[in-house]
């Protein structure tokens, strides 16, 4: 099925961390409306931040540093689906190795932690690259 046939709500912002609040509110309003539990709401909030901030930091670094991020959301049959799209450099955050969380604090570096948290708390995380766009999709039962 063509994803555009689904009825997503969508917001496009300039991929800058200063717009994190706008993106979070867009997601939270819809989760609240759907009666999402506080726990799932916070877990989704954290995952959304990790993915969005990743885009802000890396997607357009080699393209002059600025560009758009589109966030789309659909809640259907008790499942929230959130899609992030950008036209920055091709980058699959899921291809990274998981951080070694058994190391002590002194030995530990934090790279990849955001993606790690996202994978642990979401039911499904998928990445696709299509027509020059990075497409990352989160799914979580709410």
């Amino acid at each position, binding site marked *: 099925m063509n994803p555009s046939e689904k009825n997503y709500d969508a917001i496009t912002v300039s991929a800058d961390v200063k717009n994190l609040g706008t993106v979070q509110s867009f997601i939270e309003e819809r989760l609240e409306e759907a009666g999402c539990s506080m726990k799932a709401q916070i877990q989704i*909030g*954290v995952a959304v931040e990790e993915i969005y901030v990743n885009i802000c930091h890396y997607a357009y670094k080699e393209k002059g540093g600025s560009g758009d991020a589109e966030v789309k959301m659909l809640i259907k049959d008790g499942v929230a689906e959130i899609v992030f799209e950008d036209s920055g450099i091709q980058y699959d955050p899921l291809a990274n190795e998981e951080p070694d969380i058994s190391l002590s604090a*002194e030995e*530990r570096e*934090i790279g990849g932690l955001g993606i*790690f*948290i996202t994978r*642990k708390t979401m039911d499904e995380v998928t990445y696709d690259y299509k027509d020059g766009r990075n497409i990352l999709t989160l799914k979580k039962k709410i």
Partner: protein
Amino acid sequence: MLNINKTITNGKAVFALEGRLDTNTSVELDAALSPVLDGINELVFDLGALEYISSAGLRVLLATHKTLSKKGGMKVTNVNEMIMEIFEVTGFSDILTIE
């Protein structure tokens, strides 16, 4: 939005955090911590009113933990269920001193 309430007595600092510790507010916490860390021996983070933490917030906690592990140490207190779950998922519950 993050409110940081800090109290420093005899080399021991208590930072009570209220609100959200995210990518943007963790910069504010970092800025509040850096002038204080040199002059203190111990630090307590009271997370009783913290509603949200992301990996950016975890990074600040870990960096502070590392700095103070050479001195009197860092503790976190009043951790609610949600924040504790994030600590557990990430292995932070084994690293941090949680009371």
